[in-house]
Protein backbone atom coordinates (compact mmCIF):
# COMPACT_ATOMS: atom_id res chain seq x y z
CA UNK A 1 0.00 0.00 0.00
CA UNK A 2 2.87 2.27 0.70
CA UNK A 3 4.38 1.69 -2.67
CA UNK A 4 1.07 2.32 -4.43
CA UNK A 5 0.81 5.74 -2.86
CA UNK A 6 4.20 6.71 -4.11
CA UNK A 7 3.40 5.68 -7.64
CA UNK A 8 0.19 7.72 -7.68
CA UNK A 9 2.09 10.74 -6.45
CA UNK A 10 4.47 10.40 -9.32
CA UNK A 11 1.67 10.47 -11.88
CA UNK A 12 0.18 13.51 -10.30
CA UNK A 13 3.21 15.69 -11.12
CA UNK A 14 2.63 18.26 -13.95
CA UNK A 15 4.12 17.14 -17.32
CA UNK A 16 6.54 19.39 -19.20
CA UNK A 17 7.90 18.89 -22.70
CA UNK A 18 9.63 20.99 -25.32
CA UNK A 19 8.48 20.10 -28.81
CA UNK A 20 10.60 21.39 -31.66
CA UNK A 21 9.11 22.53 -34.90
CA UNK A 22 11.55 22.38 -37.77
CA UNK A 23 10.97 23.86 -41.17
CA UNK A 24 13.36 23.79 -44.10
CA UNK A 25 12.99 26.44 -46.75
CA UNK A 26 14.72 25.79 -50.00
CA UNK A 27 16.27 28.75 -51.66
CA UNK A 28 13.96 30.08 -54.33
CA UNK A 29 16.63 32.29 -55.84
CA UNK A 30 20.08 30.90 -56.46
CA UNK A 31 22.99 32.82 -57.97
CA UNK A 32 25.73 30.92 -59.78
CA UNK A 33 28.87 32.18 -61.42
CA UNK A 34 28.88 30.73 -64.90
CA UNK A 35 32.08 32.37 -66.07
CA UNK A 36 34.68 34.54 -64.37
CA UNK A 37 35.69 37.75 -66.06
CA UNK A 38 39.09 38.82 -67.28
CA UNK A 39 40.38 42.33 -67.85
CA UNK A 40 42.03 43.03 -71.13
CA UNK A 41 44.60 45.80 -71.43
CA UNK A 42 44.10 47.31 -74.90
CA UNK A 43 46.05 50.45 -74.03
CA UNK A 44 48.36 51.16 -71.11
CA UNK A 45 45.82 53.24 -69.24
CA UNK A 46 42.76 51.04 -69.70
CA UNK A 47 41.46 47.76 -68.34
CA UNK A 48 38.32 46.36 -69.92
CA UNK A 49 36.31 43.13 -69.91
CA UNK A 50 34.99 43.79 -73.42
CA UNK A 51 36.05 41.00 -75.80
CA UNK A 52 37.09 43.60 -78.37
CA UNK A 53 39.59 44.87 -75.80
CA UNK A 54 40.91 41.37 -75.13
CA UNK A 55 38.78 40.84 -72.05
CA UNK A 56 36.22 38.26 -71.02
CA UNK A 57 32.80 39.22 -69.75
CA UNK A 58 31.80 37.60 -66.47
CA UNK A 59 28.49 35.70 -66.62
CA UNK A 60 26.13 35.21 -63.68
CA UNK A 61 23.09 32.95 -63.66
CA UNK A 62 19.99 33.53 -61.58
CA UNK A 63 17.80 30.49 -60.98
CA UNK A 64 14.39 31.58 -59.71
CA UNK A 65 11.68 29.06 -58.86
CA UNK A 66 8.97 31.61 -57.99
CA UNK A 67 7.80 34.08 -60.57
CA UNK A 68 7.63 37.78 -59.81
CA UNK A 69 9.09 37.47 -56.32
CA UNK A 70 12.63 38.79 -56.68
CA UNK A 71 14.74 41.41 -58.33
CA UNK A 72 18.27 40.79 -59.50
CA UNK A 73 20.55 43.60 -58.40
CA UNK A 74 23.93 43.53 -60.07
CA UNK A 75 26.58 46.14 -59.31
CA UNK A 76 29.56 46.60 -61.57
CA UNK A 77 32.84 47.46 -59.82
CA UNK A 78 33.91 50.95 -58.89
CA UNK A 79 37.20 50.02 -57.29
CA UNK A 80 39.81 47.35 -57.38
CA UNK A 81 39.65 44.83 -54.59
CA UNK A 82 43.36 44.27 -55.06
CA UNK A 83 45.87 46.08 -57.21
CA UNK A 84 49.33 47.64 -57.13
CA UNK A 85 49.53 50.99 -55.42
CA UNK A 86 47.80 53.63 -57.47
CA UNK A 87 48.58 57.30 -57.08
CA UNK A 88 45.91 58.68 -59.35
CA UNK A 89 42.18 58.36 -59.81
CA UNK A 90 40.50 55.62 -61.82
CA UNK A 91 37.45 56.33 -63.94
CA UNK A 92 35.05 53.40 -63.85
CA UNK A 93 32.28 52.51 -66.27
CA UNK A 94 30.16 49.41 -66.57
CA UNK A 95 26.87 47.87 -67.55
CA UNK A 96 24.92 44.64 -67.14
CA UNK A 97 22.69 42.95 -69.67
CA UNK A 98 20.68 39.78 -70.20
CA UNK A 99 22.65 37.42 -72.41
CA UNK A 100 20.69 34.19 -72.20
CA UNK A 101 17.37 33.01 -70.83
CA UNK A 102 15.50 29.80 -70.20
CA UNK A 103 12.17 31.35 -71.11
CA UNK A 104 11.65 33.48 -74.16
CA UNK A 105 9.68 36.07 -72.16
CA UNK A 106 12.71 36.79 -69.98
CA UNK A 107 14.18 38.50 -72.97
CA UNK A 108 12.00 41.47 -71.98
CA UNK A 109 14.05 41.93 -68.80
CA UNK A 110 16.63 43.83 -70.76
CA UNK A 111 14.28 46.55 -71.90
CA UNK A 112 12.69 46.81 -68.46
CA UNK A 113 15.89 47.08 -66.44
CA UNK A 114 16.63 50.12 -64.35
CA UNK A 115 20.03 51.52 -63.51
CA UNK A 116 20.72 53.24 -60.23
CA UNK A 117 24.27 54.51 -59.94
CA UNK A 118 26.41 51.45 -60.56
CA UNK A 119 23.63 48.95 -59.90
CA UNK A 120 21.42 47.45 -62.58
CA UNK A 121 18.09 46.09 -61.37
CA UNK A 122 16.13 43.40 -63.23
CA UNK A 123 12.60 42.49 -62.27
CA UNK A 124 12.50 38.68 -62.33
CA UNK A 125 8.89 38.24 -63.32
CA UNK A 126 9.23 34.69 -64.65
CA UNK A 127 10.43 31.48 -63.08
CA UNK A 128 13.50 29.96 -64.66
CA UNK A 129 17.12 30.76 -65.31
CA UNK A 130 18.52 34.02 -66.57
CA UNK A 131 22.13 34.68 -67.50
CA UNK A 132 23.55 38.18 -67.04
CA UNK A 133 26.92 39.50 -68.16
CA UNK A 134 28.62 42.57 -66.82
CA UNK A 135 31.00 44.80 -68.73
CA UNK A 136 33.51 46.80 -66.74
CA UNK A 137 36.27 49.19 -67.69
CA UNK A 138 38.73 51.26 -65.73
CA UNK A 139 40.77 54.15 -67.11
CA UNK A 140 43.68 55.35 -65.06
CA UNK A 141 44.25 59.08 -64.44
CA UNK A 142 44.50 61.11 -67.57
CA UNK A 143 45.77 58.42 -69.86
CA UNK A 144 48.41 57.43 -67.34
CA UNK A 145 49.75 53.88 -67.68
CA UNK A 146 48.68 51.38 -65.07
CA UNK A 147 51.50 50.04 -62.94
CA UNK A 148 52.50 46.50 -63.63
CA UNK A 149 50.78 43.90 -61.48
CA UNK A 150 47.53 42.07 -60.97
CA UNK A 151 44.27 43.95 -60.77
CA UNK A 152 41.15 42.40 -59.29
CA UNK A 153 37.65 43.83 -59.12
CA UNK A 154 34.34 42.24 -58.13
CA UNK A 155 30.82 42.28 -59.51
CA UNK A 156 28.27 42.11 -56.69
CA UNK A 157 25.10 40.19 -57.51
CA UNK A 158 22.21 39.96 -55.07
CA UNK A 159 18.72 38.56 -55.20
CA UNK A 160 16.33 40.91 -53.42
CA UNK A 161 12.80 39.76 -52.47
CA UNK A 162 10.13 42.17 -53.57
Amino acid at each position, binding site marked *: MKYLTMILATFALPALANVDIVGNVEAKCVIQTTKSGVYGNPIASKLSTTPADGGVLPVIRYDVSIADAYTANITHPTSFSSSPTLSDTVAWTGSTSVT*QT*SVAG*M*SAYEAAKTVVDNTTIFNLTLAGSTWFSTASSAVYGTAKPFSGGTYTASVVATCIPK
Partner: protein
Amino acid sequence: MGWVLFLALWPSYSQCEPYTYGTSPNAASAALSWSMGNILPSGSGLDINGLIYRYRTVKNTEDDMKVHISNKNANGAGYIFRETDDWSGVPSNTILKQFSLANIPAPNWGDGSIEIEGQGSIEDAVVIYTFRMDKCFDPQADPSCAGYKEPIPEIPEYEIYDALEDDAVVENIEDNLNYDYDEDETKIEDDEEEEKETRLELGLTASANAMTLLRTQGQSSIINAMNIKTNIDIYYNSAINGGIYKDTTNLSDAEIPDNKNALRNNLAQQVLHNKLVDMQYNK
Protein backbone atom coordinates in the same frame (compact mmCIF):
# COMPACT_ATOMS: atom_id res chain seq x y z
CA MET B 1 26.23 -9.54 -34.88
CA GLY B 2 23.72 -10.49 -37.52
CA TRP B 3 23.68 -6.94 -38.87
CA VAL B 4 27.45 -6.89 -39.09
CA LEU B 5 27.40 -10.05 -41.15
CA PHE B 6 24.63 -8.66 -43.33
CA LEU B 7 26.53 -5.45 -44.00
CA ALA B 8 29.73 -7.35 -44.66
CA LEU B 9 28.04 -9.56 -47.20
CA TRP B 10 25.91 -6.82 -48.79
CA PRO B 11 28.26 -5.90 -51.62
CA SER B 12 28.33 -9.47 -52.82
CA TYR B 13 24.63 -9.30 -53.46
CA SER B 14 24.64 -6.03 -55.34
CA GLN B 15 24.64 -6.07 -59.11
CA CYS B 16 27.01 -4.06 -61.24
CA GLU B 17 25.54 -0.89 -62.72
CA PRO B 18 24.33 -2.04 -66.13
CA TYR B 19 23.90 1.48 -67.52
CA THR B 20 26.25 3.66 -69.44
CA TYR B 21 25.40 7.28 -70.14
CA GLY B 22 26.24 9.56 -73.00
CA THR B 23 25.26 12.57 -75.05
CA SER B 24 24.49 12.92 -78.70
CA PRO B 25 26.23 15.35 -81.02
CA ASN B 26 24.42 18.54 -81.95
CA ALA B 27 21.38 17.34 -83.85
CA ALA B 28 20.80 20.77 -85.40
CA SER B 29 24.33 21.39 -86.55
CA ALA B 30 23.58 20.86 -90.22
CA ALA B 31 19.87 21.60 -90.56
CA LEU B 32 16.78 22.40 -88.52
CA SER B 33 15.42 18.87 -88.94
CA TRP B 34 17.13 15.60 -88.22
CA SER B 35 16.66 11.87 -88.02
CA MET B 36 17.29 10.29 -84.65
CA GLY B 37 18.92 7.30 -86.28
CA ASN B 38 21.75 9.52 -87.44
CA ILE B 39 22.60 11.00 -84.05
CA LEU B 40 22.00 8.20 -81.55
CA PRO B 41 24.19 5.14 -81.24
CA SER B 42 22.76 1.97 -82.66
CA GLY B 43 21.79 -0.95 -80.49
CA SER B 44 18.98 -2.01 -78.23
CA GLY B 45 18.41 -0.83 -74.67
CA LEU B 46 18.83 2.87 -75.43
CA ASP B 47 16.70 5.37 -73.50
CA ILE B 48 16.55 9.15 -73.84
CA ASN B 49 16.74 10.72 -70.40
CA GLY B 50 17.28 14.37 -71.23
CA LEU B 51 17.26 17.07 -73.86
CA ILE B 52 19.08 20.38 -73.99
CA TYR B 53 18.60 23.05 -76.62
CA ARG B 54 19.85 26.54 -77.21
CA TYR B 55 19.45 29.04 -80.01
CA ARG B 56 19.50 32.76 -80.63
CA THR B 57 16.63 34.61 -82.20
CA VAL B 58 16.97 37.34 -84.76
CA LYS B 59 13.78 39.42 -84.87
CA ASN B 60 12.22 42.78 -84.33
CA THR B 61 10.86 43.24 -80.85
CA GLU B 62 7.37 44.04 -82.04
CA ASP B 63 7.09 40.99 -84.30
CA ASP B 64 5.24 37.84 -83.35
CA MET B 65 7.36 34.74 -83.39
CA LYS B 66 7.10 31.23 -82.01
CA VAL B 67 9.75 28.56 -82.11
CA HIS B 68 8.77 24.89 -81.78
CA ILE B 69 11.32 22.26 -80.86
CA SER B 70 9.83 18.81 -81.30
CA ASN B 71 10.27 15.13 -81.98
CA LYS B 72 7.55 13.12 -83.63
CA ASN B 73 6.14 10.02 -82.04
CA ALA B 74 7.64 7.12 -83.96
CA ASN B 75 4.88 4.76 -82.85
CA GLY B 76 1.90 6.90 -83.66
CA ALA B 77 0.59 10.34 -84.39
CA GLY B 78 1.61 13.49 -82.57
CA TYR B 79 4.81 14.28 -80.79
CA ILE B 80 6.82 12.52 -78.14
CA PHE B 81 8.44 15.85 -77.25
CA ARG B 82 7.38 19.36 -78.10
CA GLU B 83 8.34 22.69 -76.59
CA THR B 84 7.28 26.11 -77.82
CA ASP B 85 9.03 29.39 -77.09
CA ASP B 86 6.88 32.45 -77.64
CA TRP B 87 9.06 35.40 -78.65
CA SER B 88 6.14 37.64 -79.59
CA GLY B 89 6.72 41.19 -78.44
CA VAL B 90 10.08 40.49 -76.87
CA PRO B 91 13.49 41.33 -78.25
CA SER B 92 15.98 38.89 -79.66
CA ASN B 93 18.00 36.88 -77.25
CA THR B 94 19.57 33.53 -76.64
CA ILE B 95 17.52 30.85 -74.96
CA LEU B 96 18.77 27.73 -73.26
CA LYS B 97 16.48 25.02 -71.92
CA GLN B 98 17.08 21.62 -70.50
CA PHE B 99 14.61 18.85 -69.77
CA SER B 100 14.83 15.70 -67.71
CA LEU B 101 12.94 12.87 -69.34
CA ALA B 102 11.76 9.60 -67.86
CA ASN B 103 14.04 7.28 -69.84
CA ILE B 104 11.90 7.13 -72.96
CA PRO B 105 13.04 4.27 -75.22
CA ALA B 106 14.89 5.52 -78.25
CA PRO B 107 12.74 3.59 -80.75
CA ASN B 108 9.80 5.77 -79.69
CA TRP B 109 11.57 8.92 -80.90
CA GLY B 110 10.73 10.03 -84.39
CA ASP B 111 12.36 12.72 -86.48
CA GLY B 112 13.21 15.97 -84.73
CA SER B 113 12.91 19.55 -85.93
CA ILE B 114 12.96 23.23 -85.04
CA GLU B 115 10.05 25.06 -86.64
CA ILE B 116 9.64 28.82 -86.75
CA GLU B 117 6.19 30.37 -86.80
CA GLY B 118 5.89 34.08 -87.49
CA GLN B 119 8.49 36.72 -88.26
CA GLY B 120 12.10 36.13 -87.42
CA SER B 121 14.82 33.53 -87.64
CA ILE B 122 17.17 31.66 -85.37
CA GLU B 123 20.88 31.02 -85.47
CA ASP B 124 23.48 28.95 -83.63
CA ALA B 125 20.93 26.26 -82.81
CA VAL B 126 22.10 23.42 -80.60
CA VAL B 127 19.99 20.38 -79.71
CA ILE B 128 21.61 17.65 -77.64
CA TYR B 129 20.02 14.48 -76.31
CA THR B 130 21.34 12.68 -73.26
CA PHE B 131 20.80 8.96 -73.21
CA ARG B 132 21.20 5.89 -71.08
CA MET B 133 22.23 2.57 -72.55
CA ASP B 134 21.32 -0.64 -70.77
CA LYS B 135 23.92 -3.22 -71.66
CA CYS B 136 21.78 -5.86 -69.96
CA PHE B 137 18.70 -5.10 -72.03
CA ASP B 138 19.40 -8.51 -73.44
CA PRO B 139 20.69 -10.47 -70.41
CA GLN B 140 22.57 -12.79 -72.69
CA ALA B 141 24.67 -9.89 -73.96
CA ASP B 142 27.02 -10.05 -70.99
CA PRO B 143 27.75 -12.78 -68.44
CA SER B 144 27.68 -10.15 -65.66
CA CYS B 145 24.01 -9.33 -66.36
CA ALA B 146 21.33 -10.52 -64.02
CA GLY B 147 19.36 -13.31 -65.61
CA TYR B 148 22.24 -14.43 -67.77
CA LYS B 149 22.06 -18.12 -68.58
CA GLU B 150 25.02 -20.12 -69.68
CA PRO B 151 24.35 -20.87 -73.33
CA ILE B 152 23.96 -24.54 -74.19
CA PRO B 153 25.67 -25.33 -77.47
CA GLU B 154 23.55 -26.94 -80.11
CA ILE B 155 24.52 -30.55 -80.56
CA PRO B 156 24.30 -31.60 -84.18
CA GLU B 157 22.36 -34.78 -84.80
CA TYR B 158 24.20 -37.45 -86.68
CA GLU B 159 22.59 -40.42 -88.37
CA ILE B 160 24.21 -43.49 -86.90
CA TYR B 161 25.11 -45.99 -89.54
CA ASP B 162 24.38 -49.55 -88.57
CA ALA B 163 26.06 -51.84 -91.00
CA LEU B 164 23.84 -54.71 -89.97
CA GLU B 165 20.85 -52.74 -91.21
CA ASP B 166 22.45 -52.08 -94.56
CA ASP B 167 20.94 -54.52 -97.05
CA ALA B 168 23.99 -54.40 -99.25
CA VAL B 169 26.18 -55.45 -96.33
CA VAL B 170 23.80 -58.11 -95.14
CA GLU B 171 23.63 -59.62 -98.58
CA ASN B 172 27.39 -59.92 -98.73
CA ILE B 173 27.89 -61.38 -95.30
CA GLU B 174 29.13 -64.90 -95.63
CA ASP B 175 26.42 -67.27 -94.75
CA ASN B 176 28.61 -70.24 -94.29
CA LEU B 177 29.88 -70.03 -90.74
CA ASN B 178 30.77 -73.69 -90.46
CA TYR B 179 34.51 -73.57 -90.10
CA ASP B 180 36.65 -76.68 -89.95
CA TYR B 181 38.90 -77.17 -86.92
CA ASP B 182 41.78 -79.58 -86.38
CA GLU B 183 42.47 -81.63 -83.32
CA ASP B 184 44.08 -78.62 -81.59
CA GLU B 185 40.87 -76.67 -82.13
CA THR B 186 42.61 -74.40 -84.62
CA LYS B 187 40.53 -73.19 -87.49
CA ILE B 188 41.56 -74.75 -90.72
CA GLU B 189 41.83 -72.08 -93.38
CA ASP B 190 40.78 -72.93 -96.85
CA ASP B 191 43.21 -72.85 -99.75
CA GLU B 192 42.17 -69.43 -100.97
CA GLU B 193 43.06 -67.84 -97.65
CA GLU B 194 46.37 -69.65 -97.56
CA GLU B 195 47.10 -68.35 -101.00
CA LYS B 196 46.33 -64.81 -99.94
CA GLU B 197 48.65 -65.19 -96.97
CA THR B 198 51.38 -66.47 -99.25
CA ARG B 199 51.08 -63.44 -101.45
CA LEU B 200 51.31 -61.24 -98.43
CA GLU B 201 54.41 -63.05 -97.24
CA LEU B 202 56.00 -62.63 -100.65
CA GLY B 203 55.31 -58.97 -100.57
CA LEU B 204 56.88 -58.61 -97.16
CA THR B 205 59.90 -60.55 -98.28
CA ALA B 206 60.43 -58.34 -101.29
CA SER B 207 60.17 -55.32 -99.09
CA ALA B 208 62.68 -56.76 -96.65
CA ASN B 209 65.11 -57.49 -99.48
CA ALA B 210 64.82 -53.98 -100.77
CA MET B 211 65.58 -52.66 -97.32
CA THR B 212 68.56 -54.96 -97.08
CA LEU B 213 69.95 -53.70 -100.40
CA LEU B 214 69.52 -50.16 -99.30
CA ARG B 215 71.18 -50.89 -96.02
CA THR B 216 74.22 -52.43 -97.80
CA GLN B 217 74.62 -49.44 -100.04
CA GLY B 218 74.44 -47.18 -97.06
CA GLN B 219 77.20 -49.04 -95.25
CA SER B 220 79.43 -48.81 -98.30
CA SER B 221 78.96 -45.07 -98.47
CA ILE B 222 79.82 -44.72 -94.79
CA ILE B 223 83.02 -46.75 -95.19
CA ASN B 224 84.10 -44.63 -98.14
CA ALA B 225 83.53 -41.46 -96.19
CA MET B 226 85.56 -42.85 -93.29
CA ASN B 227 88.39 -43.73 -95.64
CA ILE B 228 88.44 -40.28 -97.16
CA LYS B 229 88.66 -38.77 -93.72
CA THR B 230 91.45 -41.12 -92.70
CA ASN B 231 93.46 -40.27 -95.81
CA ILE B 232 93.23 -36.56 -95.36
CA ASP B 233 93.96 -36.72 -91.64
CA ILE B 234 97.53 -37.64 -92.53
CA TYR B 235 98.09 -34.14 -93.81
CA TYR B 236 96.32 -32.50 -90.95
CA ASN B 237 98.23 -34.44 -88.36
CA SER B 238 101.75 -34.06 -89.89
CA ALA B 239 104.15 -32.00 -87.82
CA ILE B 240 107.17 -30.09 -89.12
CA ASN B 241 110.19 -30.15 -86.84
CA GLY B 242 111.53 -26.81 -85.64
CA GLY B 243 114.95 -25.30 -86.54
CA ILE B 244 116.59 -23.42 -89.40
CA TYR B 245 116.21 -24.62 -92.94
CA LYS B 246 119.07 -23.23 -95.03
CA ASP B 247 119.02 -22.78 -98.81
CA THR B 248 120.51 -25.71 -100.57
CA THR B 249 121.31 -23.89 -103.90
CA ASN B 250 124.40 -21.71 -104.01
CA LEU B 251 125.37 -19.34 -106.85
CA SER B 252 129.07 -18.47 -106.85
CA ASP B 253 130.08 -14.92 -107.88
CA ALA B 254 131.30 -14.90 -111.51
CA GLU B 255 130.71 -13.03 -114.74
CA ILE B 256 128.10 -14.64 -116.83
CA PRO B 257 129.16 -14.24 -120.48
CA ASP B 258 126.71 -13.31 -123.19
CA ASN B 259 125.33 -16.03 -125.22
CA LYS B 260 127.18 -15.83 -128.45
CA ASN B 261 124.47 -17.67 -130.22
CA ALA B 262 122.13 -14.82 -129.39
CA LEU B 263 124.51 -12.06 -130.39
CA ARG B 264 122.62 -11.17 -133.51
CA ASN B 265 119.43 -10.94 -131.59
CA ASN B 266 121.01 -8.76 -128.91
CA LEU B 267 122.33 -6.33 -131.49
CA ALA B 268 118.93 -6.09 -133.15
CA GLN B 269 117.37 -5.26 -129.82
CA GLN B 270 119.95 -2.51 -129.25
CA VAL B 271 119.34 -0.98 -132.68
CA LEU B 272 115.60 -0.98 -132.06
CA HIS B 273 116.10 0.68 -128.69
CA ASN B 274 118.22 3.40 -130.21
CA LYS B 275 115.58 4.05 -132.86
CA LEU B 276 112.94 4.48 -130.26
CA VAL B 277 115.05 6.91 -128.27
CA ASP B 278 115.83 8.94 -131.37
CA MET B 279 112.15 9.15 -132.26
CA GLN B 280 111.62 11.19 -129.13
CA TYR B 281 113.91 13.88 -130.49
CA ASN B 282 112.56 13.67 -134.03
CA LYS B 283 115.77 12.49 -135.38
